[in-house]
Structures are given as structure tokens and as C-alpha cells.
């Protein structure tokens, strides 16, 4: 069903349409929540709260925009609020000189979803959040700084650190691969 039609039915209180919308987006949003949250329980809570917000504020969705992206933004914001409530610590790396590192594309390609996700989850929560927001969701540093209420430079340094951390972990997983500076 067309998203516009689906949303209008949801707004009319059609439970079938609500279920259809939920079934369409919940699996991908569950993956988003798991990447941001510390535990499975927290991820489930975020998904639940996020979808309640989606249905409550569905009227404010601009029909010309992508519904999936709109829902994703709400879910990401819900996860960030949850992390904020859990008092996630943002480490300021302003004074630290960070060296940009990279790994070979083949090494990343060889990794499965599961392995990649596990590596990501092993990163500290602060790195992981900035990495998710910048690399996966595509937010700019200024946007991330506003969302997390930290400075832009902290964002950048966290991002570099996160990249290094992930590259290291990939290399550890595949010793034959060396990461390039």
C-alpha cells in the first residue's frame, strides 16, 4: 500500500493500517535500536516508545517526504533520549591528536552483518553513537553536536577515535589485513 494512503488510514484509527505500517518498518528500526542501545531490553523499549511517538505524531509527517526516513529519525532521537537518561558519558578528546586511519575495503566486505555488528557493539557507547549518527545515518558534525549537546570538535574527535577503534578491531579479527594511515 502507498505510504500516503497507509498514513491517512492510520490517522483515521484503522488498526489494520497501523499494524501494516508497523510490520513494514519495525524490523529495520529494531536493528537501528540495537546499534544505539546498550542492551536488548533498552532497544525494545526504544522501539516501543519510538513507534508510539510515530503514531501519535503521524499527522506532522510531510507526505512529500520519505516515511521511512521520518520514522528512522524519530527512532534515532528516542534512542538518544534513552541514552541521555542513562547518563552516557561523552569523553572530550579536544586535546588529543588523533590520526586518521583506514582499512582495506576487501577486509570490510569479507565481514558478515553479524560480525560487523558485533564489532560495532564492542565499541564504547560514546564512539558508537557518533559513528552511527555520522556514518550510518549520515548526519553532519554540527547536527550531531546539537543532538548530543556536545561541541563540534568533540564530535569530530569521537568520530576519529571511533573509526580507529573499529579499524583496529577489524584488523584484529583479520590479522592478515593491515590498516593504512
Amino acid at each position, binding site marked *: 500500500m502507498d505510504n500516503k494512503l497507509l498514513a491517512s488510514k492510520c*490517522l*483515521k*484509527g484503522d*488498526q*489494520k493500517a*497501523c*499494524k501494516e505500517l*508497523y510490520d513494514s518498518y*519495525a*524490523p*529495520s528500526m*529494531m*536493528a537501528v535500536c*540495537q*546499534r544505539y542501545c546498550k542492551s536488548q531490553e533498552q532497544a*525494545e523499549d526504544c*522501539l*516501543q516508545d519510538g*513507534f*508510539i511517538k510515530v*503514531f*501519535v505524531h503521524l499527522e506532522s509527517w510531510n507526505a512529500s517526504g520519505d516515511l521511512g526516513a521520518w520514522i528512522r529519525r524519530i527512532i534515532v532521537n528516542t534512542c538518544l533520549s534513552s541514552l541521555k537518561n542513562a547518563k552516557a558519558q561523552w569523553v572530550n578528546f579536544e586535546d588529543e591528536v588523533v590520526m*586518521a586511519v*583506514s*582499512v*582495506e*575495503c576487501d*577486509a*570490510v*566486505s569479507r*565481514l558478515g*552483518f553479524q560480525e*560487523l*555488528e558485533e564489532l*560495532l557493539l564492542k565499541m564504547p557507547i560514546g564512539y558508537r553513537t557518533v559513528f552511527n549518527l555520522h*556514518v*550510518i545515518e*549520515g548526519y553532519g558534525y554540527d547536527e550531531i553536536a546539537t543532538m548530543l549537546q556536545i561541541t563540534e570538535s568533540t564530535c569530530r574527535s569521537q568520530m576519529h577515535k571511533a*573509526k580507529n577503534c*573499529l*579499524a583496529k578491531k577489524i584488523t584484529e579479527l583479520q590479522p592478515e589485513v593491515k590498516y593504512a594511515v
Partner: protein
Amino acid sequence: MTNNWMDIVRKKLYFQEKKVPDHIWITVQKNLPQKRKRNKFYFSIFYSGIVLIGTFSLLWFIQNVNPSNLDNSYTQKGNVKITNRGNHPILKQLQSSPDDVRLSNELQSSSINSNLVNGIKNVTFNDKRYKKEKNISQNNNANQNKNLKIANSIKREIFEPNFEAPNNIQILKAELFNMNFLPQKLGKIIIDSKEKFMIGIHTECYNFNKNQGRGFAIELYAGPGYNPYLLTAKTTESQDYRKSRINSESSMVSGIIGIRGIYTFSKIALRAGLEYQHIHEKFKYRNTNDYKVIEVYTDSQLVRKDTIYGARYLSINNYHRMLHIPISLAYEFNKGNIGYSIQPGVGLNIWSSHKGIIFDNLLRPKSVHSAGASGGEVFKTKVGIFAFMNFQVSKRISPNIKMFVEPGIMYFISTFNNIDYILNQKYISYHVKLGLNYTIR
């Protein structure tokens, strides 16, 4: 180049999907926003309007059947319209000397032809659905003598309690009656001694129908019903579950009650209203693994604890309560005093509530309570559309009231269950409605 590996990470993770636990949707569903208030607002305005119209119509009806208001323009069946009664020469004479009324030739002819009969000269005569209009003044001269006798006879019939007209006069009256100017039988004039003449003429004459077959009416009805359901399995795996449900549940006698408005034109009647239906079922269950723990206390000290294993029989009443808007287009015809009506129609269920216990797919008893906003997992809170066919037989018990019996059948086109449920449950409802029909005009 440095960001290429991150692009791959992004591509791999962005579209990743994970299995979602079922309980999340249940919680989300419970918190879904209600239907927009605007709809409820229009809905309530619509039905308040219907109730108001109904109330005013009823008040109007009650006010107009009051005998004190029969003075000027009442033309329902059984009554005769008399215009300008206050200036009627007969009544003027009666006012002066009610016990000694003599009709002069001039008065006799004019009273019958011009005044008394003129009062009803422009009536619409409705027999076998056609109307006739005639003016008696054209025949004044030819019928003068005849009318003189008739006038005397009518006057005496009206004012003298024990007077009965001779046969020849009855024949002349019958002729006049056949010309559609005179009611078949005249009632007595009731004289109010205080100063005002109150006329209550009750006759057995034809229905002077001015509405050419159009009219409004309200019907109130209630009656018993029986509502078996049809269960179909969506998959072959759910066949056993279907059989278990059929074996464990049975239909009981239920009920239906409603109000509807009717607009009649010629032999066609459009009915629309509000109907409440109550479906009653019984769920019977035998739990062979039931147990009961008996604890024996002495001075608040547990001294013995026995566990008894056995079978327990449960009998639960399941209810489906529903509100419908039925609309029908009927064909109506009369044979004497009895009316018949065939009413095919469609309806919309606008609200339903379900309460009770049925088996779940693992054959465990499960509550299907669904009153409230969230609705249940099994049944819908708005069932949808249904089709029906009623056959009505009515009998007129007063000029404005008919009593009717209406057997009918309803078939729910929409299923009662939610889309996720593994069976399709549809109902057929047989019912007999008993009710009253109030003709407004």
C-alpha cells in the same frame, strides 16, 4: 579513499533488519491514538439531530391528536374538515336557542350546499389511490329539495341523541355519500355549555389523504434472535483448531432493539435508524488437568495441605454487543387493514464489544474481552457491513399507530475477527422484531 570502507559499513548496516518480539506491537497497539475527535464530533451531531427531529415529531404528533385542537384543519382518517365553524349559521342559531332549531329554506339549502357541505367541498377523496375533487354548488338547484330533507335529517342526527333517520332519507344520504360529499356516518356535536362550541365528529369515512402517498413515520422495535456463526480456516493447519472451536461453542437466544425513521412515497419506503444487537453464545470447556489445593490452618499455622487432581467443567457466557446503522428500501402494500412490506437493505456496524472466553490456537481458554479503545486480539471493534432482508406484517390499531411483526435475516459480509486471526468468523442472524409504527404525517 579513506571513507570507502565506511561506505561499505554503512551499506551493510543501514538496511539491516532484526526480528521484533511480538509483545512490542501489543504495547504499541494499546497506546495507539484514538480516532480523530472531529469524526466523533460529526457523528454525535448527526445522531443528536436525529434524536431531536424524532422528539419534535413525537411532540407534534401528541399535540395534534388532542381533541381540543380538532377545531379547524384536522383531516386525518375518521374526521371531517369543517371550515369557519364559528360563523356557521346552524351554530349561530344553536348559540341563541340550542333546544329549538328550525332550518329555514334559505338556511337549509345554503347550510347544506354552501356552508356545512362547503366545509368539506374541496376534499381529496382517496379510494384505490385516486383523488376526486368536486364542487357541489353546481348542483344546487337540482338537489335543493333532496338536500332540504337531508339537511333536516343530518341536523337531527347531530343534535338529537336518539334520532334515527327514516329509510328514504338514509337512501338520499347514501346518494350524497356516493357523490363523496358526505361522511358515511356522522357523530354527535358536543356542546360546551360555558360558551364555546367544541365539535368532535367521529365518523367512519374514507381517508382524506392530502399527501398523495408520501409520509413520515417512526418505528420502535425489539425482538429475539438466534445467531449461528460460520467459521472457515485460513490454512489447512488451522482446521483442527476450527473444529475445536465449533465443538466448544454454541449459539444461544439473543436480542435486537432499535429505532428507525421511515419516509414513504407511494408503495416504496426508505428506512434508516439505529439498532443495538446482542449476540449470546456459550463456551463449554473441560479441563482434565485441573487441581485444587486445600490448606488446613490451626491457629494461623498451616498443619495440612492437600492437592486434589481432577477434571473441571467450565461454562462461560460469551457476549457480542453491537450498534448498527441499517438502511433499507422496502416495497409496501395493503390488503384491507393489514399491511405487508418486503425490506431488503444493508447496514454498517459502527461499534462492537466482545466479552468471553474461547480457545486459542493451542486449545487453551483465552479471554476475548475487547471493550475499550485498544480492541482485542481476536475480534474487531467495528465489524463492518452486513446485508439483511426483513418481511413485515402490520395492522393498524389507531389512525396513527400500526403494530407490526417482522421476521428477518442478517448476513455479516465482513468478518468479526481481526485480520491476524487464523480463522474467519462470520455471522448469520435470524430474528423476529415486534414493534410499533407511529405515523407523523
